[in-house]
Every structure is written in C-alpha cells, then in structure tokens.
C-alpha cells in the first residue's frame, strides 16, 4: 500500500543490485538511523539504554554472525557463546597488555582471534553435516568455556577469576569502565553494529554470499560451479566467528562491564543466540535484528511489564516464568511461522506492495 513502486526504474546494474532498491526502503533506513543516533540517546531513559539497547546491540552482532553460518551457509553451530568468549577475553588481554592502543581498535581486532579459533573448530564441517555438526560444535563450546576457567593467564591471574573492564578513553572521553557515560557506550556499540551490519550485508550480497547460499541449498551443484566446499565453509566459520568475537567483546566491555570466568559464555547463551537466529529468520539480516530484539526485550517486558499491568510476580518467580514463556513462545512462533519474523515482515511488505490485491 505504501510501497508505490511505479516510476522507480533502474538504468544501471548498480542501482538494480542495490541492497534497498525501493526508494521507500531507503528512506525508512535513513529514518531508523536518525532515530537511533539522535532520538534514542536524547529521549531514552538510562534504564531503557542499559537493560534493552546495550544488550541488544551487543548480541545482535552475534546473531548476525551465527546467521551467516547457519542461515546463509546452512551449518548449525552451538558454540556461539564460546566464540563470543574468545572475543571478550582477547580484548581483555589486548587492552591490558597494550593499554595505550585505542580500545575500539582492540574490540575490532579481538574478532580476528575469534575468527582464527572459529576456523579451527570449523574444520570438521567438511565431513560432518547437519545435526552431527551441531553436536560437534559443542566441543568448541565446552572446550572454550573450560579454557576461560582453567587458564588463569586469560584473566590476568585475578583471584576472583573474573575480568574487570578497565577504564579506557577515546579522545579523553571515557568509553569503557564504570565511569563511562551510558550514552557514549550506546553510540559506540551502535556504530559497531551499523558498520559491521553494512559489511555483512555487502558480503552476503556478492559472490561470497552466493557461494554460501549455494553450499546451503545444494552442495553438490555448488561444487559443480567450481565452489570449493572447504574454503567456503571455513570462510563462513571465520566471518561468523569474527562477528561473534566482536559481539562478545562489546558484551563484556560495553554492556556487562566485567565477567565471571566461564559463566557468561555458557551453553545457554549459545542457545539463546540460536533462538534469535531462528525466530528472526534464517538467512536474513533484518531477521537477525528482529531475533535479537525479541530475545532481549522479551525477558525485560515479562519481568517489568507483567507487574505493570497488575500481575504481581516476585523476581525469583519471574525468572522461572520468563524461562517458561520463552520456551513456549519459541514453540509457538515455530508453529506459526517456521521461517521466522523476517518472513512475516517480508510477507507484510509484499502484501503492502501488491495491495489491494491479495497476491
């Protein structure tokens, strides 16, 4: 209905291959960016920023990362939290070893460490497929989690076994550590998300993305196109783990401010990220955002929203109900639309485009 595409014709391949070929979408994206950069920091309360926006921004990159692996390349992984942990610990080690280097650089660089580990654990993917691979990636999850506890060097032999995010400044403005303003943290996380999402979308829209999807849809035919399975799959593992690593670094440095060895990056987080990918929609960038938003907002809404509408629950019971509701909602969503929120969004958009016709 609002997608009036008449008169939008393409005279170059570049404009035809644009990620948002419709003018309305381009305007929509600009509006969202403006809101995110200007309106949210100005208007949103610290509570909203802290409990929703920061974890959302930190986790959404992991969701994008896992979506690259699972949604685009068709490889299921349950080791996401482990790779996130690698990013977090790498960033911690790097910034304590070289405190003078800009922390933002280290956040980005920590992704490369994660990518390298990801490649190692991705090696079995050549021989194993599907659920077998999913179980195999648990090896990464448990091994890495174990390493975060048992290798004290990683947390600088801190007696508590936890890592504390140190104060770091960029141009004199504190960006990490307890004294950093929440708006600053938000803007930094937002920028990471915007830039890296743009990059991810660039990759998936080109030759590399097509190779991934080809491997996902029909690996035999993909080989016939000259696509080398091992290289393609390992690249997917590397890129995916990079995103998870950066996400992990942001999760600890921007959102949590510190982490107990091994507890934050447990198997449950891996599952939550996988939830987000599937609920959001496999193979969809926008779906990653929907999925991350869903898993971050839902517990908060349940925890604070239910009392607000008069259903009194105590904190402890709330936790349990949240877990229960997440489980039930997952099943419900899978039944309603196995292809996730992104598909619903796509259907809605298509409906608006052909409006008033039904198809």
């Amino acid at each position: 209905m609002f997608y009036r595409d008449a008169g939008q014709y393409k005279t170059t391949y570049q404009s035809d291959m644009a990620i948002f070929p419709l003018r309305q979408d381009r305007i929509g994206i600009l509006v969202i960016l403006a809101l995110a950069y200007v309106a949210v920091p100005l208007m949103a309360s610290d509570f909203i920023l802290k409990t929703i926006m920061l974890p959302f921004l930190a986790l959404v990159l992991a969701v994008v990362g896992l979506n690259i692996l699972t949604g685009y390349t068709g490889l299921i992984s349950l080791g996401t939290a482990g790779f996130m942990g690698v990013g977090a610990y790498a960033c911690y080690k790097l910034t304590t070893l070289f405190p003078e280097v800009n922390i933002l650089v280290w956040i980005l660089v920590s992704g490369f460490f994660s990518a390298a580990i990801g490649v190692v654990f991705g090696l079995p993917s050549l021989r194993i497929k599907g659920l077998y691979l999913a179980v195999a990636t648990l090896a990464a999850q448990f091994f890495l989690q174990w390493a975060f506890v048992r290798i004290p060097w990683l947390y600088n032999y801190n007696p508590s076994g936890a890592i504390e995010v140190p104060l770091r400044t960029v141009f004199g403005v504190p960006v990490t550590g307890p004294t950093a303003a929440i708006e600053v943290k938000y803007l930094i996380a937002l920028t990471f998300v915007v830039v890296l999402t743009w990059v991810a979308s660039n990759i998936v829209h080109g030759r590399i993305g097509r190779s991934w999807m080809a491997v996902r849809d029909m690996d035999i035919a993909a080989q016939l196109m000259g696509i080398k399975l091992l290289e393609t799959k390992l690249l997917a593992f590397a890129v995916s783990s990079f995103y998870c690593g950066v996400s992990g670094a942001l999760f600890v440095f921007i959102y949590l401010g510190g982490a107990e060895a091994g507890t934050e990056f447990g198997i449950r987080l891996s599952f939550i990220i996988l939830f987000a990918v599937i609920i959001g929609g496999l193979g969809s960038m926008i779906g990653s955002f929907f999925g991350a938003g869903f898993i971050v907002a839902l517990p908060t809404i349940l925890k604070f929203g239910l009392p607000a509408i008069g259903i009194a629950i105590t904190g402890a019971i709330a936790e349990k109900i949240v877990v229960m509701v997440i489980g039930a909602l997952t099943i419900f969503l899978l039944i309603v639309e196995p292809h996730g929120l992104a598909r619903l969004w796509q259907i809605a958009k298509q409906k608006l485009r052909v409006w008033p016709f039904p198809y």
Partner: protein
Amino acid sequence: MTDATLATRKPFLSEGQRNGLIAGGVLALFIAALVVATQTGTITRNDWIYKIFVDPFVSMVDMPDLLVQTVWEGFVAGVLYSLIALGFVLIFKASGVFNFAQGIMVVFAALSLVGFYEFLTLTMGLPPGFVAAIVAMAGALGIMFVLAVAVERIVLRPLVNQPDIIMLMATVGLTYFLIGFGEYIFGGSPKVMITSQLGLPTGSTMLDFAGGRINIQHLDVAAAVIAAVMIGVLGFFFQYTRIGRALRAVADSHKAALSVGISLNQIWVIVWFTAGIVALLTGIMWGARSDVSFALEIIALKALPVLIVGGFTSIPGAIVGGLIIGVGEKLGEFYWGPLLGGGIESWLAYIIALMFLMFRPQGLFGEKIIERI
C-alpha cells in the same frame, strides 16, 4: 605401460582399510620411537612428551587397582549416558526429531517422582516407605504420559514435515519450558532422591584387587543391572511385539507404518512415552548418585557426544557409545586431566566424539550416508 595406467588398476585395499593400516603403522612406529627414546634417555621424566605419552601408561601398569576403579566408574557413568542417549535414539528413529529435551526430561521425571513422594507423604499423610514410593512412581509415569501426549499434540503435529533444525529448536523450546515449569512447580533447590524407599540398595563393598582395593557402590551395580534389563525389555519389545514392529517400520518409512494400520500420531505418543519411562529410570539412578536438580542439565548434554559416537539411529550404538565416552572421559580426566589443570571432563567427551566423527561421519553403528545425485 605408462604411469597413467597405474591409477586405473583395481586397488588392493579399500580406502578405509588402507587408512586404517596407515594409521596403525604410524601408531606402532610412534610407540616404538617413544620406547627407544625413553630407554636411551632422550626423553626425561620432565619432558611434556613423557608426561603425555609415557607417564600415564606407566601409572596404569603400576597401580592396576586405580585403573580398574577408574574404568568401573567410567563404566557406570557410561551406562547412564547410554540410557539418556537411548531416549534420544528412540525418538529420532521413530519421528526423525532430534529431541534435545531428553536430558531435561530425565531431570523433570526425577523431580516429578520426588515431588509426588513429598506430596504423598507430607500433604496426604501416606506413611513414608515403599508403598508411597511406588504410588509416586505411578504418578511420575502418569506425568510422563501426559507430557508425551502434550508434546505430540502441541509440538509435533503442527510442525510435521518441517526441516530438522526447526524440530530441534522446538525441542530446545520444550527444554526451556520444562526448566521454567519444573522450577516453578518444584522450586529451585536440589532434592534428595528416594533411593532406599524404592528398594534400591545403598552402601558399598570394598574388593581386594592386585594389591589395592576397589570401592564398588551397590547402587551402581543395581544401575548397571537395571539398565541391562531395560535394554533387554526394549529389545524384546521392538523385536517381538506388534507395536514394536510398527515402530521399526516407521523408522524405515512413514508410509510403511501407515499401511500396518497404526497412525503416526499414536506412534509418536508411544515413542515419547517410552522415552519418558527411560528418562524416569535414568533420573532415579542419576538422582541417587547426586542431588536432583536442574544442574543435571549439563550432564544430560553428555548424551550428545554419545550419540555422535554411536549414531543417531542405533540402540547398540547408544550403549557402546555411552561406554566408550564414560570410560574414555574418566580415564582422560584421571590420567591426563592434571596436566591441563583438571576439569577436562567437561569437554573431553566431545573431543573423543569428534575424533570418531572424522573417521566415521555417520557414527559407529549409523548407516552409511550415500549421496544421491
């Protein structure tokens, strides 16, 4: 003849045989080299090579009682892993669903049992003891049945024919639901299993062995026996009953099962209920060895590497895989764990499973995957 014709000759050994032979040869060479190097003093006791490749074996030979004790513990753990894996296999075979919730069903079943028992004795005033325990057992079975029906109605039926990963995620959703629901009903604090009330033996026996003593828990023996009996019963059930045969038919082809005259929905209920019974028995034994709480969840995940080793569809595979993983990780933890700072039990099972996968991607007993073009 030119070199091109060389490759066209029929190979003497199949690829697998050749790989095995090569691996065996390399291993033999490596051991021989180690022996020589140790004897000649090239490797000393403080070298890491010695610590990894020689020292543990020396200890095994020196203290056989410890070895046997470790193997026994591994064996018992393995039996329990097998039982959890068995639940997975049953469901996977019959419905193609990778039931991630099987581990949680074990905990949930055990909690239901204890919860029922507490309810009966504390609220209903039934005298504590065997009778109450049996009534509680029946109640727990009832819950597992209700669960099976609910899962079939609410989860499986609407999701039939969806891709594997969607089904997997649905069972993960089920896991979360059961955790939240279980904690909401039974509370978060650990509970004690009603071991003696159920008539299970407690206590232990010390056996003299090769100059040392081995501690055998009676409960462990009972667990092994019960597991063996259960596997026997299941085997009988599958082999000789009409429903069992139908279940096997489903595993081969859904259409074949329909022609036998049993609806797919009934079969799913039966299979999930059977898996529920297995879960309850597993839960009793796990619970008896430690507390009953959702902390068991992480141990329940151990069934996954077992499945990789044994294959998703093979009951003998689940048993053998469970034993391999159980024994392997106990040995690894005991002899090699200290080198890495301990606690390697948490991931060793997965690494062992990965090793197996690299050589047999379909598991030990799984059917060979033939890709059709």
